[in-house]
Structures are given as C-alpha cells and as structure tokens.
C-alpha cells in the first residue's frame, strides 16, 4: 500500500476509535426509539412480576412506618444523583456510574427495582438517557438483572467470609458486567446479524461497547467499595436505619431505637409503646395509634 494511503488509513482508524470511545462512555441505556415495538412490550411484560413484587414490598414498609416514605424517596434521589455525577476516568472522558450495584447493596433488589424504574423515567425525561419506549428493556437490564446479580454476589461473598472489599467490588463489578451483557443480548435479539444470527450480533454489540463498559465497570466497582466501606466505618447507625429495607420478611426487624436515625424518638412511634408505658407519665392517653 502506498505510504500516503497507509498514513491516511491509520489516521482514519485512530479518529474513528476516538470518536467511538470518547462519547459513548455512559452507562448502558438503550436510547429512545431504538427497539422495535414488539420487543418494547415484551421486555415490559417480563419486568412486571419483579416490579409488582418490589412495589408490594415497599408498600408494606411504608405501612409499617410512614416515615419510611421520605426515606425511600431519598434513596431514589440518592441513586439518581450518584448516577449523574461525573466519576474519575482513565481516559479523561465523561463517565457516570449506574448506581444500581450500590443501590442493591444498600437497599436490596426489591427496592431497587421500583426505585430503578423511577430513576430511569427521570433519566429519560430530565437527561435524555434512555427512553420511554425502551423503559422496559432498560429496567430489566439495569434495575432488575444487574441488581439481582450484585445482591446475590454480595450475599454469597458475605456467607463465604470473603474479604469485605473484594466482596463488594465483585458485586458491583459483576453486576455492571451482567447489565452490559444483558443489554447487548437485548439488542442482538432485536437485530440479529445476517451473517450469524443472534449470536454473532451479540458478539458484535459486546465488542463494540466493551472498550467503554469494561473500564467503567472496574471504576464503578472501586467507587462502590470506597463508598460502602466509608459508610460502614463512619455511618453505622445510618446503615442500620435503612437496613430494614433489605431485611427479608420473617426476619426480626431492628428494634425501634436502632431504626430511627440518630436515635431520635418521635411521638408517633412512641404511641406504639403506649400499652407498655405507665399512664401517669403522659396523663390521659386514650387509644394507642392504630394503623
């Protein structure tokens, strides 16, 4: 090949590579309008049972204690804000973490499924990341599949007494990787390759997003570790107070003073103790609070 053409070719490849890597460093939201209608509906239907289960679980928590409503809402806002912050990146380009791995570890997969779809709606409308038609597919990959894997690995590592930091890292990292794989498969199913079908198409999508998604998953893993370890070191009472969100049903809920942040007792909660408290202390208390 003549020298000039070689140089041009190299320049072309470098430019194309930069163009591919630099902007596409965001998390795996499938953009608006990208999936055929049938798949949009199908993924939405697949999400429904998980979302319903998550919603019922949240409803129960709010019924237990109305104060949990603002707590759960703040958690959702927290996930959104964390995923909107620029994270340090090796390439220097603009990157964001998904926040769902962290969310799964802190709040549990049931809460994250519902909070996740709400966050995705806000991301679509307020940030143009993702879309309303692709909400079903994105919810499944980012709010259900990824967090379930993150949570599962986190619990597994805890049970196997694996080093704390390694456990959290693996949970967040593998959750991210799994999300990225699921998204690639979702795209491949909708757009199978002419030369190789769904499998080849999946390989293509995996390959094309790998340069950005793999380093991103590593960084997200590290950041999740730093945040979780930081919280466990300096914010134990706060973690306890949201630990109830994660508790499996049937497990003994944390006692009241652990549950309320910084141990501030409130009158409404104290009403539950009414039957145990002597009447003289508060005068004429008539009926305990009924819910």
């Amino acid at each position: 090949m003549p020298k000039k053409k070689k140089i041009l070719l190299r320049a072309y490849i470098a430019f194309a590579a930069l163009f591919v890597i630099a902007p596409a460093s965001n998390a795996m939201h499938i953009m608006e309008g990208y999936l055929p209608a049938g798949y949009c509906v199908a993924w939405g239907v697949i999400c429904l049972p998980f979302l319903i289960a998550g919603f019922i679980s949240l409803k129960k928590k709010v019924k237990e204690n109305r104060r949990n409503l603002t707590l759960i809402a703040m958690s959702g806002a927290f996930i959104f804000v964390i995923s909107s912050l620029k994270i340090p990146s090796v390439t220097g380009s603009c990157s964001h973490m998904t926040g769902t791995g962290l969310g799964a570890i802190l709040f549990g997969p049931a809460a994250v499924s519902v909070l996740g779809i709400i966050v995705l709606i806000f991301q679509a409308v307020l940030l143009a990341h993702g879309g309303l038609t692709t909400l079903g597919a994105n919810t499944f990959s980012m709010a259900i599949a990824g967090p379930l894997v993150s949570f599962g690995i986190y619990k597994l590592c805890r049970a196997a007494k694996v080093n704390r930091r390694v456990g959290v890292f693996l949970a967040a990292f593998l959750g991210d990787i799994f999300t990225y794989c699921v998204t690639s498969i979702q795209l491949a199913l909708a757009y199978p390759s002419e030369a190789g079908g769904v499998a080849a198409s999946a390989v293509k999508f995996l390959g094309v997003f790998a340069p950005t998604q793999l380093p991103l998953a590593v960084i997200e893993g590290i950041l999740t570790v730093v945040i979780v370890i930081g919280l466990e070191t300096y914010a134990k009472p706060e973690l306890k107070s949201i630990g109830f969100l994660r508790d499996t049903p049937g497990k003994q809920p944390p006692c009241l003073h652990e549950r309320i942040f910084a141990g501030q007792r409130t009158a409404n909660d104290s009403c539950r103790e009414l039957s145990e408290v002597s009447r003289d202390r508060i005068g004429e208390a008539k009926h305990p609070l009924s819910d």
Partner: protein
Amino acid sequence: MIRDKEWVIEVYDVSYTYDGNEEKALDGLNLKIRRGAKVAFMGGNGSGKSTFFLCLNGIRKPDAGEICIDGNPINYTRKGLLDVRKKVGIVFQEPDDQLFSASVYEEISFGILNLGIDEKTAQKEVEDVIEELEITPFQDRPAHALSGGQKKQVAIADILVMHPEVMILDEPAAALDPRHTRKVQEIVERLTEKGITVLMATHDIDYAYAWADEIVLMHEGKVIRQGTPLEVCSDRSALETANLEMPAVLKLHERLKEKGMIPEETVPPRTVDELVEIL
C-alpha cells in the same frame, strides 16, 4: 386544676433526652405563654430551642412533664396530635427541610387540604395567602429555582394557610439578606395583627428587644430568665450565661446616662428612633 385559657401554651417540668445521648436536651423546663403574645426565644446553639419547639407540636414527646395547649394537655393519639398541629405551626429554620414539592402552588395547598377542607375553599385560601405574602411573582417557579428568601416566604405561607393559633418561627432570618429579613419582619407584624401568638427563635438581640412582648432566655435545656425585654436585657448575668450581649440601644442609653448627657429618670428606649427622641 382549672386551666387558664389566658395561657395558650403551658409547659410544666418538661424534660427530653435524645436516644443515645447522655445529656438532657430539655431539663425541667417551665414556661407559660400568653395568647397573642410576641415571644422571642434566645440562647446559644444547643440550648434546646429547636427541641422545645418540636415538643410543642407533638413531634417529640417529652420523657417527663406536661405540655398544655389551650388549657388541654397534649393527647398523643392520632387525633390528639392532629388537633395540636392544627393549632401550632412551625416554620423550620431550613426551608429545604420543609418544602417537599417542586411546585409552589402544590406545596402551599398540602397543609390546608390535610385539614379536610374542600378543594374549592382550599384553592381560595391558597390564592389569598399567595397574594398576602407577595408570592405571586414567583408562584410558577419550581422550588429549586427560588432564592433563600423566596423559599422562606413559601415556607411561612405553608403554615399560614392553615390558620394556626400559634406560629413558631425557628430563626426565620438565618441566611437572609437585609431586604428579605425586613420582609420577614413585616410578615411577622401582620401575624400579630391577626391575633396569632408568635414564638420566634432568634440570635438578633436588638430585634428581639425592639419587637418582643416577652423574651425567654434558654441555656442547657432550661429557662434561665423570662420577662419583658427591659427586664431580661438589663439582667447582665443572665445575658452572660446565655452568651448574649446587651442590645446596642440599651447600652448606649446607659452610657449616655452615666455621662450625664440625658437625665436619670428617662424611660429606656426600645429603638434607635426612641433614643434619638430623648436626646
């Protein structure tokens, strides 16, 4: 015991400790507040003012003691607490801790709808309050686009729309510029004209001295001095314990008397203007 309806708030020996804390936030606090009065609460940070306010509307239940609103002790049942909160409203120090809705209109309508008022009447009340507190210019802006002063106006409107008997303002002028501080002071004057009892926590001794009917000094969860502004502000030792200075006007008045520039018998002035009158 016959409850005196002259007192809108009576506090008997109230104590409260936060969970996990050793020290008491409130330690045997005794207080009576007259209906329609303007009461300034002063004291250092951590003296218990905010905790006390939260006890007055039932958010915190004292470990010991009793609080009576309108002659009736607070009934810590759901209905009892609702009744208390209809009568006693708190404007929190930090508006971002109070405004939960992005829409100003929806935010203000929350309180009054909770009182069970029908939508049409509620709409009129909300619009009246918006006009009265001069919120109209920014009523269509989202809460996050408002300045600190505007947020404070909305926070006050939130409570005023519920027509409380007692309005508690926890450091209303904190972080406000002079213009918005004046606006808040004007709003407070109008509250008193409506007959609302106003309790205000403030660090501004000059304002408290000029405005209040009564000043309450708090320190370490107790009331160390309660009385008319002149009584309290002349009590040097109490002021010192509460980490406060004498109001500038009073100080100047005393110095001028010492120097013989004004006669001994003059009534101590409340404001700079009154002092100038004397001179």
